C-alpha cells in the first residue's frame, strides 16, 4: 500500500496546494513542501527497510508489490512493485521534489497554486513510472508526467518558453506514440500466442517473439526512451526545455525526467527483448559514447549558463546508456550511480543557475564575470558542483563514470578508450563555466546579495549527498540490478558485444 501512497500523496498534495492558494495566498508552497517532505520520509523509510535485503549478494530483486484490478477486460491492472533501482530513483525524485519546492520559494510569483499542482503531479507521474509494472499503467504515468511539465515550461518559463515547451511536447509525445504502438503490438503478439490478454510486465517477460518482431517492437520502446534519456541524435529538445524552464522545472527535468528514459532502457528494453537488445547493444553503446563526447563538446560551446549545464546532461546520461547496454555488474552499478549523482550535481547546478538568474536577470555568462568577489558563497557552490560535474574522485559522478568505463572496457576496450577522452572535455567545459562566471574582474559592477539561509540549506544538503555518493557509494551500488538474477539471454548480449 505504501507504493500506491507514494504516487497518491503528491497528487493529493498538488490538489491541496492549488486549492489552498485560493483561500490563502502563500500557503501553496508550504503545502507543497510538506507534501514533498512526507514523500521523502516515506521513500527513505522504505529504503532503510530494504537496505539490509539489498546488501545481500543474492537477493531476489523485488522488495515490495501492490496489485489491484483496474480494467480486467483488457488485462490491465494497477500493478506496482519496487526493486533496488526503482527505490533509489524514487528516493532521488522525492529529494529533488523538496529541492525544487525550495528553489521556487521566491522565484514563482504568478499562479503559485497551479505551479505547485503541476510540479507535484509531475513528481507523481515520475514516481508512477518508476513503480508501474503494468505496461498500460506505465504508459499512463509516462503521459501523466509529461503534461504538467509542459505547463511548467510553457507558463513559468523564460523568454523563449513557447518554442521550448512545444518542442518538448512534440518530441516527447511523438516518441511516446511509438512506444504506445510497440506496447500494443507486444500485447497482441502475446495474446495471439497464449490467448491471454495482459499488460502485465511479468507475463510479457515470457512472450515469445519472432526475431524481426522483437527488433521492431524494441525499437518502438527505444525511440521513446532515447528521446527522454536523451540519446544523441534525439537530444535537441533538451537544451531548449532545460534552459527555458523555471528552476524547479530544470531540476525535475534533469534530475528525474531524464532518468525515466534510462530507467526504461534498464527495466524494459533489455529484459523484455534480450535477443534484440543484444544485437542492438553495439549501436546503442556507440550512440551513448557519441553522446558522452558530443554533449561535453557542445557544453563548452555555450554562453548561456543553463544551456551549458543542459548539454552536460547529454554527456552524463550517455554514461548511463553505455553502462546499461554494456550489461555487466560494473557498468550497471556505474549506470545507476551515474543516474543518482547526475541528479544531485546537475540539479544543484540548475539551482545555482536559478539563483544567479533571479538576482541578475540574465543567464548570459558574458555578462557575469568576476562574481567570486561579489557572492563568494554562491561562487564556492558553483565551483563545487562544476568540479563534481567534471568527475573528480571523491564525488558521486566519478564513481559512476569510472565504473561504467571500466565495465565497458571489459567488453570493448576501444570504445571505452574513446569515451574516456571525455575526462579532458569535461574539464574544459567545467573550467570555462567557472572562469566565465566567477573568476575575472567584476567588470559589470554587479552588487548582489549572497546565499540566503534557505539557499544555503538546499545547496549544502546537495554538497553532502555528492560527497557521500563519492566516498561511500555502496548503498546505491547495492541497489543496482544483479546480473545474476537477469534473464539468461542478457548474458548473450554481453558476449555479442565482446568484440575483443
Amino acid at each position, binding site marked *: 500500500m505504501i507504493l500506491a501512497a507514494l504516487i497518491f500523496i503528491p497528487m493529493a498534495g498538488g490538489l491541496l496546494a492549488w486549492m489552498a492558494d485560493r483561500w490563502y495566498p502563500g500557503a501553496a508552497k508550504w503545502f507543497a513542501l510538506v507534501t514533498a517532505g512526507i514523500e521523502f520520509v516515506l521513500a527513505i523509510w522504505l529504503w532503510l527497510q530494504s537496505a539490509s535485503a539489498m546488501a545481500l549478494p543474492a537477493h531476489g530483486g523485488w522488495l515490495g508489490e501492490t496489485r489491484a484490478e483496474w480494467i480486467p477486460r483488457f488485462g490491465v491492472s494497477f500493478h506496482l512493485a519496487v526493486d533496488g533501482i526503482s527505490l533509489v530513483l524514487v528516493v532521488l525524485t522525492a529529494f529533488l521534489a523538496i529541492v525544487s519546492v525550495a528553489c521556487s520559494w521566491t522565484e514563482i510569483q504568478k499562479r503559485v497554486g497551479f505551479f505547485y499542482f503541476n510540479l507535484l503531479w509531475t513528481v507523481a507521474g515520475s514516481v508512477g513510472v518508476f513503480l508501474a509494472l503494468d505496461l498500460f499503467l506505465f504508459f499512463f504515468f509516462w503521459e501523466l508526467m509529461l503534461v504538467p511539465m509542459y505547463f511548467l515550461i510553457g507558463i513559468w518559463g523564460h523568454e523563449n518558453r513557447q518554442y521550448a515547451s512545444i518542442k518538448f511536447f512534440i518530441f516527447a509525445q511523438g516518441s511516446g506514440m511509438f512506444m504506445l504502438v510497440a506496447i500494443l503490438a507486444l500485447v497482441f503478439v502475446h495474446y495471439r500466442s497464449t490467448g491471454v490478454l495482459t499488460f502485465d510486465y511479468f507475463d510479457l517477460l515470457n512472450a515469445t517473439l519472432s526475431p524481426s518482431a522483437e527488433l521492431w517492437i524494441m525499437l518502438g520502446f527505444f525511440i521513446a526512451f532515447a528521446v527522454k534519456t536523451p540519446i544523441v541524435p534525439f537530444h535537441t529538445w533538451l537544451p531548449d526545455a532545460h534552459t527555458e524552464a523555471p528552476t524547479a522545472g530544470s531540476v525535475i527535468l534533469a534530475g528525474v525526467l531524464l532518468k525515466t528514459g534510462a530507467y526504461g532502457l534498464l527495466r524494459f528494453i533489455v529484459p523484455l527483448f534480450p535477443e534484440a537488445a543484444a544485437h542492438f547493444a553495439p549501436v546503442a553503446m556507440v550512440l551513448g559514447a557519441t553522446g558522452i563526447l558530443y554533449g561535453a563538446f557542445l557544453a563548452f560551446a*555555450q554562453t548561456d549558463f543553463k544551456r551549458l549545464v543542459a548539454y552536460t546532461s547529454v554527456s552524463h546520461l550517455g554514461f548511463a546508456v553505455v553502462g546499461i547496454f554494456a550489461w555487466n555488474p560494473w557498468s550497471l552499478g556505474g549506470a545507476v550511480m551515474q543516474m543518482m549523482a547526475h541528479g544531485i550535481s546537475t540539479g544543484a547546478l540548475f539551482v545555482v543557475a536559478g539563483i544567479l538568474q533571479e538576482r541578475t536577470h540574465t543567464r548570459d555568462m558574458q555578462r557575469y564575470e568576476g562574481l567570486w568577489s561579489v557572492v563568494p558563497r554562491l561562487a564556492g557552490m558553483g565551483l563545487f558542483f562544476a568540479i563534481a560535474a567534471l568527475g573528480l574522485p*571523491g564525488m558521486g559522478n566519478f564513481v559512476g563514470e569510472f565504473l561504467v*568505463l571500466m565495465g565497458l572496457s571489459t567488453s570493448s576496450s576501444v570504445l571505452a578508450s574513446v569515451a*574516456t577522452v571525455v*575526462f579532458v572535455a569535461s574539464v574544459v567545459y567545467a573550467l570555462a563555466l567557472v572562469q566565465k562566471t566567477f*573568476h575575472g574582474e567584476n567588470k559589470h559592477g554587479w552588487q548582489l546579495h549572497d546565499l540566503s539561509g534557505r539557499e544555503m540549506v538546499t545547496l549544502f544538503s546537495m554538497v553532502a549527498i555528492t560527497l557521500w555518493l563519492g566516498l561511500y557509494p*555502496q548503498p546505491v*551500488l547495492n541497489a543496482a540490478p544483479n546480473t545474476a538474477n537477469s534473464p539468461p539471454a542478457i548474458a548473450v548480449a554481453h558476449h555479442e558485444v565482446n568484440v575483443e
Partner: protein
Amino acid sequence: MLPLLWLIPTLPLAGFLLLALGGSHLGHRSIAVIGAGSVALSALVAILIGIDFIAAPPPGFVFRQEAWTWIAVAGFSPGIVFYLDALSLVMVLVVTVISFLIHLYSTEFMSRDEDYARFFAYMNLFVGSMCILVLADNLLFLYMGWEGVGLCSYLLIGFWYRDPANGRAARKAFIVTRVGDTAMAIGFFLLFTHLGTLDIQPLMQRATQQWPEGSELAVLAAALLLGGAAGKSAQLPLQTWLPDAMAGPTPVSALMHAATMVTAGVYLIARTHALFALAPAVQLAVAVVGALTLLLAGFSALAQNDIKRVLAYSTISQLGYMFLALGVGAWSAAIFHLVTHAFFKSLLFLSAGVVIMSLHEEHDIFRMGALRKKLPVTFWTFLIGSASLAALPLVTAGFYSKDLILWQAWSSTGGNPWLWAAGWGGAILTGLYIFRVVFLVFFGEARTVAPPETCRPGLCITLPLIVLAAFSVVGGWIETPSFLGNLTLFSDFIQHALPPTQVVHSGKNDEIILELLAVAASLGSIALAYLLFLRYPAFLHELTLVPALASLRNFWHFGWGFDHLYEFLFVRPYLWLAHADQRDVIDDIYRMAFSCTLRWLQKINRHDLIDNIYSGLTGLCLFLHRALSATQNGQVRRYAAAIAAGSIGIIFMGVFA
C-alpha cells in the same frame, strides 16, 4: 604509533574543512594556526611514525590500514586503505615536513592577502590529497589523491582570480595534466580487465605471474601509466603547463610545482616498477623522455628573464633527471634525487619569493641586481639552493643525488653512454642557468627602478629558509659514492620497497672518472656563468645581436614552440568547431527538416486539402440539385418515357435477379 597513520592525511583535510566552512568568520591568527597547525601536526605524526617504522619495522616492512571499503562491485573492491612501506614513508615525510615549512612561510608571506582563509584552505586540501596519493594502497584511491592535487594546483595557480591570465594558466595546468590522467585511467581499465584488481601489490604480483617480459599488454599498460606520470611531472610532451603555472603565489610554486605534486609521476612509476620492468621498451622510453626533457628544459631555463620561470624550467629539467634514473632502473637514485630536489628547489622558490616581495612584485632578473647586501639571509639561502642544484661537489645534497643518477645512467642494466651524456650536458646547463640568476640578482649593480624597501622578512619566513638550506647541505650525506665513504643508508632503506640497482657496465676506474667529469661540469658551468653574466656581459650582449642566435634564444624562451604547436593543433580547431557548432548541427537538421516539411505541406495545400473536400461536397450537392431539378420540366412526353424506362428496368431486375 603506526595505527595513527590515517591521521596524516586526515589532519590537513580537517583543517581544510574548518577553513572552508568557517574561514570568513575567523581572524588572521586563527586561520594561520589552523592552516599551518594542522600540517604541523600531520608532519609530527609522520615523523613519529617514521621513527617507529625504522626502530621497530612492521613485518615485511609494510603496514596496511583499512578505513572502509570504497566500492564493492563483483570482485572489484578498492578500499580507502593506507599502505606504508619504505617508499611511501619517505614520500610522506618529504611531503608533510616541506609542506609544514612552506605553510609557516606562507603565514607571513600571504598575510596581506584578502583571501587568507581561502589560501590556507586550498593549501591544506592539497596536503591532504598529496598524502592520500602517496599512502594509497590501490590505484583508484591513488587516483583520488592524484586528481585532488590536480584540482588544488588549478585552484592555487588561479588563486588571484581577478586577472584572466592567471585563470588561463590554471586551466591550462588542469587540462594538460588531465590529458595524461586520461591515459592513466585507460591504463587502469586495461589492468583491471586483464588482471582483475587495482590493489597495487596484488596487481604487481599478478602482472609478473601472468605477463611475460615484453608482452604487448604489459607494454601498453606501462605506456598508459607513463602518460599520466608525464602529465603530472611535466615531462615531454606534456611539459607545457608548468612554466605558466608560475602565475600562482610563490609558496604554491614552491610546494606543488617544485617539491611535491610534480614528483607524483616519479612516485607512480617507482610504485609500479614491477610493471615497468615487464615492459623494457617503455622503460627505455621513460629514460629517453627524461633525457630529452632535461636538455630541452635546461636550454629554455637559460633563455628566461622571469626568475620564477627559470626555476620552473629548472624543475622540469630536474624531474627529467628523475625520469632518466627511473628509466635505467636506478630506482633509489630517482627517489633520492626527488628528496634532495624537494629541499633545494623549494628553498630556491621561497628565496625567490622574498626577492620578488621586496622588489614589489618584480620578476625580471634584469631589473634586479646587487641584492646581496640588502637581503643577506636570502642571498645565502638562494646561493646554497643554487649550489645544491648545480651539484657543487661534496658540500651539497644535489651533488650526491645527481651524480648517483649520472653514474647509474652509465653503469646500470638500462644505462648507456648516450643517456649519461645527456645527463652530463644537462649538468652543465644547470650550473649555467642557475648561476646566471645568482649573478644577475645578487651581484653586479642595482638595476631596479625603485629601490627595495628595507623591510626585513620576519621569523616565519626566515626560519623555513634556514631549515631548508640546512637540509640542502646535509641531506645528501646519507648516500655517498663508493670512494667517498660508501654510505648507503638511503638506498638500503628504500630497497625494502624498490629493487636494488645492478651495476653492470663498469670498468675499473669508471666511477671516479665519471665523478670527476661531473665535478668538472658543475664547477666549469659555474665559472662560465661567472664569466658570461658577471665579468663580460658585453660579450653576451654581442652574441644576442647575431640574428640567428637571437631567434634561437627566442625559440628556447618560448619553450621550443610547443605552446604554439598545441595552440595550432588542438586549441584553435576545438575553439573553432565549438563556435561553429554552438547551435548544434543536429538541431539545425531537425529545424530544417521541420520547416521544409511545413513549407511543402503548405505548398500542396495552399487552399487546404480538407477544405477542398468540403467545397467539393457542396459542389456535388449543387450538381445533384441542378440535375434533379432539371427533370421537373413539365413535359408529359418525358414523364411517360421515364415511367416506361423505369418499368422496363424493374422487370429486367425481376427477371435476372
